[in-house]
């Protein structure tokens, strides 16, 4: 299956892209996708080391890392929001 991944704010400094499609095995969970992204962009680790979490949303909602992804899901990775 395929999911769409969107990156926001300073995450783009590391991914150098705004969004991409990621191919995953059919029974993949959110944590599997996060592992795959961490592997693809190893520098992202420096962000979390620096105290900036990359928060995942699936279709706009906070979900458990065990959440089973579905084909077509939209996953966003973002730092703490900064409205106002």
């Amino acid at each position: 299956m395929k999911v769409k991944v969107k990156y926001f704010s300073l995450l783009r400094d590391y991914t150098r892209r705004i969004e991409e499609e990621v191919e995953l095995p059919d029974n993949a969970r959110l944590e599997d996708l996060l592992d795959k992204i961490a592997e693809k962009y190893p520098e992202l680790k420096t962000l979390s080391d620096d105290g900036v979490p990359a928060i995942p949303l699936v279709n706009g909602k906070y979900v458990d890392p065990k959440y089973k992804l579905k084909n077509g899901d939209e996953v966003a990775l973002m730092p703490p929001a900064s409205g106002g």
Partner: protein
Amino acid sequence: MAKAKIIENTIDLNKELAEIASKTTHMGGGAIVLFMGYVKGRVNGNKVYELDYEAYEPYATKTLEEIARKAEEDKEVLEVRVYHRIGNLKPGEPTIYIIVSAKTRKKAFKVAEEVLEQVKHKTPIFKLEKRSNGEYWVIGDGRRIPRKTQA
């Protein structure tokens, strides 16, 4: 009924407040608190050129709607409106408006402040600050991190 929107332009405050006052006066309303945020021209001694706002839609709008709707569940709260701007905003330009009408002034102040905090922390909105000394991502409640690359 709560109103919440991501907008590109400023709003007409005269119209908004007159509308809310005339609508709520017969429900016993007599107090409106408005919070307007605007771009700071100086941050840490540096000149700011502009703030670039980006919202993750449609979820930013949904979050604003939910915050406004929940705040209106309080019986003393008569009307809540939340407008958040996006795009490139220059120093002094409005970025956010929170408007709350309530039966008491105390409640109007309290709810406006609470709604503002929720909007700031829960809504997927992100900003990049362009200053005389470079570009900075603004993270959470004001932490600045220098931009590394041009995406």
